């Protein structure tokens, strides 16, 4: 990556910003042949995607701290059907293509504001896709990533106990407790 980054910086330097980024994509590591279904590198990438979707804030750690990448790999491997798995895997590549198109680098290398830009673009794209999607068609890969991040984070220990409120043994039920804006939701 470093080498390609240098080349791209060089080209930028000589006013090459309008050069078709696809030229560089042939060497992009995200397109290399997969030796396994989802790699440790993918986990690192999914951690970054998850963290951009649900970042650490002043009130609680983000999705990366909840090991969202490892959760996504496990869930996609064990619970997705073959077709959805393919959409998800292809999505990883597509996400890096977009990342390179917009910011001339793989997603993991981007600054956090660049990451946000990419994720916002994808969220919009996935939202529009969902509106026209026919019944039985696969979800957009980014919808999968967003849903898995939300589900995985808020069912994790960190998401349950730090972001939301979790009481393992409530002991009683009260049907009317005051709520003030900002109070956290129950985790389950």
């Amino acid at each position, binding site marked *: 990556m470093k080498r390609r980054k240098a080349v791209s910086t060089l080209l930028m330097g000589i006013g090459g910003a309008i050069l078709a980024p696809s030229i560089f994509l042939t060497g992009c590591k995200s397109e290399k042949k997969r030796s396994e279904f989802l790699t440790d590198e993918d986990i690192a990438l999914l951690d970054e995607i998850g963290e951009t979707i649900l970042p650490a804030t002043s009130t609680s750690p983000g999705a990366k701290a909840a090991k969202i990448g490892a959760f996504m790999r496990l869930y996609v491997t064990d619970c997705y059907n073959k077709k959805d798995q393919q959409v998800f895997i292809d999505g990883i590549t597509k996400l890096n293509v977009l990342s390179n198109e917009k910011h001339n680098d793989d997603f993991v290398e981007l600054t956090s504001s660049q990451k946000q830009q990419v994720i916002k673009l994808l969220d919009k794209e996935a939202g529009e896709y969902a509106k026209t999607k026919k019944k039985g068609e696969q979800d957009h890969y980014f919808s999968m990533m967003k849903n898995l991040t939300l589900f995985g984070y808020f*069912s994790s220990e960190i998401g*349950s106990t730090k972001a939301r409120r979790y009481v*393992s043994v409530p002991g009683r*039920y009260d*049907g009317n407790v005051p709520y003030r804006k900002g*109070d956290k*939701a129950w*985790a*389950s």
Partner: protein
Amino acid sequence: MGYLNIKGVAENTFDAIVIGSGMTGGWAAKELCDHGIKTLVLERGKNIEHLKDYTTATLDPWDFPHRNRLPLQVKEDNPIISRCSAFKEDSMHFFVKDKEHPYVQEKPFDWIRGYQVGGKSLMWGRGSHRWNKFDFEGPARDGFAVDWPIRYDDLAPWYSHVEKFVGVCGNKDGLETFPDGEYLPPWELNVVEKTLQKRIMSSYKDRYVVNARCAHLTEPTELHLKQGRGKCQARNLCVRGCPYGAYFSANSSTLPWAAKTGNLTLRPYSVVHSIIYDSKKGKATGVRVIDSQTKQVTEYFSKVIFLNTATLNSNLTLLNSTSDRFPEGLGNDSGVLGKYIGFHIYRGSISADIDGFLDAYYYGRRPASTLIPNFRNVYKQETDFLRGYVSFLQAGRPAGNDNSGLIGAELKDQMTEPGDWKVNLSMQGETIPKETNHVRLSKDEKDEWGIPLLNISVDYDDNDEKKIKDFYTQGSEMLEKAGCKNIQTRDNNWAPGLDIHEMGGVRMGKDPKTSMLNKWNQIHSCQNVFVTDGSCMTSYGSQSPSLTFMTITARAANYAVEQLKKGNL
């Protein structure tokens, strides 16, 4: 099998045999043992010991690798049981997997089973509502099936007997359509449910929103503490087995109680092949059992036999208990055995939003809902379909609202707080007994014990479809009058069976020519065999049936004790 081994026979002889250890088998065992009757309980599955075998009971959500969802392999291997909403990562071990015990579906039927000590009483929904007098008068008034040989008043004292022991929380509402029982304090309705209750009840003269009554110890009595059971902690994880013994199951309550009398022998891994009939004595003498681990066949003998293997398996066992006297199945002189199988319609639900109440929330996870007793065709026939439905009403504030377009801290903040209030209404409708809804033995397919597979042929009819439509219309109207918005109806298209309220096939009745059992649940023509699970039901009502099954069982078991002591059995 026709060996003569006097010592063996003596060792294998009991006063009573109860086949099945679940909801009703546990009750039969408890009542018999309490009266000094030496009782053998046969269970086809493994043992599940209270507390010790609740392996997932205290796990947190993140302890489950798939966070309590099902891996694809499990779904692909088990298309039937995977459709059951209670079948998840935390409870899979309590349900029968598809390949373990196959059956034939002449029409789509999802047969949900729990083969273990305690049966489905471990995973049941816990709704414990008495049927009302109209439920028992239904067939006679509306001219379907046959008349029940009993009425509400016959069961009322036994309902009390069972409720006190089980521990049912609820409110005494004083309604003719929702008879009161013996209750522990009810769960509270939340703010929105109370508002909906007020608004719906002020809009209609004959519709009531009440606390559902359920088998939870909200305030254990001496009798419950004596069972070793404690107070409900509002975790709402009942399906895993309760570490406090706070909800009723055979495992937490009736079986350990029966064991303490010293009169109980519990034998797991015992697949009942058939009931043995002796034509000279004119009664059943015992039960033929296949050990599921060794495949060894053993016969057990007793004066009285209770059949409690849950509705469809009790049909199967009787159909498979043939003899020269009963070539079509034990007690089947009438030919009705296996016919008139019913269920409850769970297909319809309605979701809605309600504005406001954003300054209110709740604490704890209440394992119950509110309920609207049936208001259709109660006093007279008034619609173009027969009988009615119960509706379950619930309101809550799930975390977050529509998050499309949100990313980052904004999304996280939104999903971290409770969203707007949501309302859900769902139906539980009565079906009408039909001869065509039936089960029979497969002619050519057998299970691994050599017992014929059960062929199930049960379907919805026009009356059911009309009832679902009526629920949509009436339910939507009630929610609209109560101030709800965005009201949407939904048909989950469930096949029969997923309700897990299958009933009938061995129905009670006054006339041996048209029914299998008399008013004490004895087989008309073989009176030392009692059938007291869901298969005995003449009609199906609209209330959850388990409490009524238990009540019928307790009543029949006490009658059996009387008759045994008089030497009549």
